[in-house]
């Protein structure tokens, strides 16, 4: 009898839910927000390990967004997972985000004042124990879908930042959806992509001029008492560009911002001065990821019939590789670097979605598929 139990324990993984054992550098977390109420896996050393989800409601879309934090100081990534359709305190779709530590603890984060349809958890970002969660559809008094970003360090209470906050560049307008894309930059700086920002001049505007052209803001230090930031919009912006749809920070090099409708990625240096603009097809700039060695991955999930990912280098213009899988669907919907490898999600791939893994110089893409799911690879982070 004992032996049977031991065998079954080995087979089903006798450890609690999301406790992590073994080496965990180079892990990638992959979300599948439509696997029931949502599910998240950890891709660790080539093995796909399901992560035990907290108690969820139907249709919460847990895994819509994911990020890797480090809050308990054990050197093993802690997972930050968004569930933007979670109901909170009776408010439908207010949204929540979950911190699942490598030691097995679960912390549920919600907006201090949960608001119906705010979708808190739509986007998440983390750097060490600095954590940011966006609620882009949060209304601000009469301004519908102005959007807010919530940040905290360690276990401090969440701090709300919006375009109405003092010293934050920009004005809160209807439909801005502030916080759509987030990436921590150098130090405690935070890059915020606002792809649905309209532009028609100074002052408050509502649905006039260039609709959804987009903008990007870099907040210098989100832990500082007094905030400050720089806002940037493409000088040649056009309606619908969605500039700011995805953002990434490459350590030591600078910032990258995607405009997938227009089909370009704008690169900036550490002083937030524009350097290079790279164009591409198929919603080029839909997703972005940075590697420690200066490489940048750009997802173009609507390229061709499979989607594609382009690998560039912030510092070296000659680095330019295009990865196209032999088969797939929406490859490049999400991207992440893990050690030397590039991982890209193809969530519409049969049967449940795929994560494609490519070695640094390899030409082949290995497919990692879950045993079940729906949109595996819709989100990922490292």
């Amino acid at each position, binding site marked *: 009898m004992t032996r049977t139990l031991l065998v079954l324990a080995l087979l089903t993984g006798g450890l609690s839910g999301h406790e992590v054992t073994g080496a965990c550098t180079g892990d990638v977390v992959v979300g599948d927000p439509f696997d029931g109420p949502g599910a998240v896996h950890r891709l660790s050393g080539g093995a796909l390990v399901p992560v035990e989800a907290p108690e969820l409601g139907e249709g919460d879309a847990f895994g819509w967004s994911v990020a890797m934090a480090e809050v308990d100081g054990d050197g093993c990534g802690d997972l930050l997972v968004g569930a933007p359709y979670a109901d909170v305190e009776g408010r439908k779709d207010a949204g929540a985000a979950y911190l699942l530590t490598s030691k097995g603890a679960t912390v549920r984060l919600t907006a201090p004042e949960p608001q119906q349809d705010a979708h808190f958890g739509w986007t998440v970002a983390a750097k060490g124990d600095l954590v940011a969660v966006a609620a882009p559809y949060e209304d601000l008094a009469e301004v519908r*879908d102005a959007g807010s970003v919530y940040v905290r360090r360690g276990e401090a209470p969440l701090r709300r930042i919006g375009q109405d906050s003092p010293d934050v560049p920009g004005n809160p307008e209807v439909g801005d959806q502030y916080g759509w894309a987030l990436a921590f930059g150098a130090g405690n700086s935070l890059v915020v992509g606002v792809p*649905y920002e309209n532009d028609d001049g100074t002052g408050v505007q509502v649905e006039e001029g260039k609709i959804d052209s987009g903008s990007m803001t870099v907040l210098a230090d989100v832990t500082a008492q007094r905030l400050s930031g720089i806002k940037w919009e493409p000088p040649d912006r056009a309606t619908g560009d969605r500039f700011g749809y995805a953002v990434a920070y490459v350590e030591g090099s600078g910032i990258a911002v995607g405009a997938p409708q227009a089909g370009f990625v704008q690169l900036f240096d550490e002083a937030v001065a524009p350097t290079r603009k790279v164009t591409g097809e198929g919603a080029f700039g839909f997703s972005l990821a940075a590697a420690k060695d200066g490489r940048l991955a750009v997802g173009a999930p609507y390229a061709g019939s499979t989607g594609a990912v382009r690998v560039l280098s912030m510092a070296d213009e000659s680095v330019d590789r295009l990865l196209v899988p032999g088969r797939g669907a929406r490859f490049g919907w999400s991207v992440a670097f893990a050690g030397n490898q590039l991982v890209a999600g193809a969530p519409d791939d*049969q*049967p449940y979605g795929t994560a494609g893994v490519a070695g640094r110089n390899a030409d082949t893409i290995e497919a990692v598929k879950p045993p079940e799911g729906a949109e595996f690879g819709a989100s990922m982070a490292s």
Partner: protein
Amino acid sequence: MKPMGAAPLRPTDAREIGPYRLLGRIGEGGMGTVFLAIAPTGRPVAVKVVKAEFANQEGFSARFHAEVDNARRVASFCTAQVLDNGNDSVGRPYMVTEYIAGVPLSDQISEYGALEPAALHGVALGVAAALAAIHVAGLVHRDLKPANVILSMSGPRVIDFGISRALDRESNFTLSGELLGSPGWWAPEQVRGQQVTPAADVFAWGCLVAFAGNGRHPFGRGDAITMATRVLHQTPDLGALPAPLNDLVQRATTMDPLLRPTAQDLLLALVGGRLPTPDPPTVIATDLLDRNWEPPPNVADTAVLSATIPPQEEVRRGEEPSVAGRGEAPQEEPRSKGRRWLVAAAAVAGALLVTVAVLLARGPSVTPPAQQAGGAGALTAPDAGRRVGLGPAFDDPQFLLTGRPRCGLTDYKGAKSSDGRYCVLGWALLNPGGTARPLAASGVALVDDRGGRHESAPASTKLPATIAPGERIDGVFVFDLPPQRLPSVLEGTLMEGGQRIEVRLS
């Protein structure tokens, strides 16, 4: 060519068990030993004697015989009919089945590689029929694997069913520590030690057909623990199988047992979905068998040798010529293969007629409580979980099938199906963009596998007038389909001014 049949008896073996005279050893497993024997009637039989360590367990004998009594109710088409059971002279239980001369599928594949399509279809059909017969009798095989499928001249036969349940009360291990059963062929729920239902046999059917059609196990090779781990965590490599097997095998090897087709579903799909008509089923049945069973060439040769009696017994035969029946077996050889095929085919066709009529008339039974009434099954839709854009921009509203379409329901939320059976499609609509969009369902229909179009039933979710930025709407479409129709495509327009979508369901 490897001689099949039996190895010589060992000096320590008994020479008789009950009224059966042992001729040789067919095999030995974790549970017991199987002998080739001759019945008093002269018929060759297989006698399985249980190991002493089991026989000594309290209550084992009673359980064993209860199981065998159950197994005797299983229709004999495509299985090895259970003939008798009893206790031997030292009290060990034994059971007697007809002896099937042929090549175990495991040996066939390892020696000759993957089956040709014709033989593969025959195996898929025969094993599905055997499972249907076993399940209708209220049993679960629990140990279906290629070694338990014998390719004989009269068709594939599934052996060795139903008895392992008697042993599985406390553990999957024998007292000496061997693992019982074959984890490489177990369904995930079996590996986890959860409740084993007929769906576990269907999973094994899928793996078996993939194995026979590709010449390799869908979960690769390895020891018991490795295989068991793979079954739990990996999707099987089903290779390339001819239609409709590719689809059926994929559905059969779904992780969730509730979503797999039943053995009857498989059987009906493989015989072309025809219902019994008042017109002679014999015509359909014989026709089916003629068209479906082509044993690989080596089976014919081997089947002849299977009836060979091991040398030591030939000597004994000289000493005891009075056992009349014994002479029968080798005398089969002079008969021409062609005639034997016809004789066997006619007998089997008769059995098929009975079996098919029984299976279809009785309808699905043995449904575990968790399954839907009416034998509902869920389908693996190719487009499940795929975001289908309702407009050209990447952030236009999107439609996704959530979960899997469930069909075969006789009623849904209080409404009763009038055409036959309901298919329920769960979905989500998303607006990942920045503008509210107007919704209007127009031309929403389900096209079935015969091309029939069906509009959505009133029980379907009504779409709201708009979908706000960031909003997610969950709902269902319900369609009333005639029985035995399978959904093929969902089509329609859901957004005002949007593009028409097509979502593949099978």
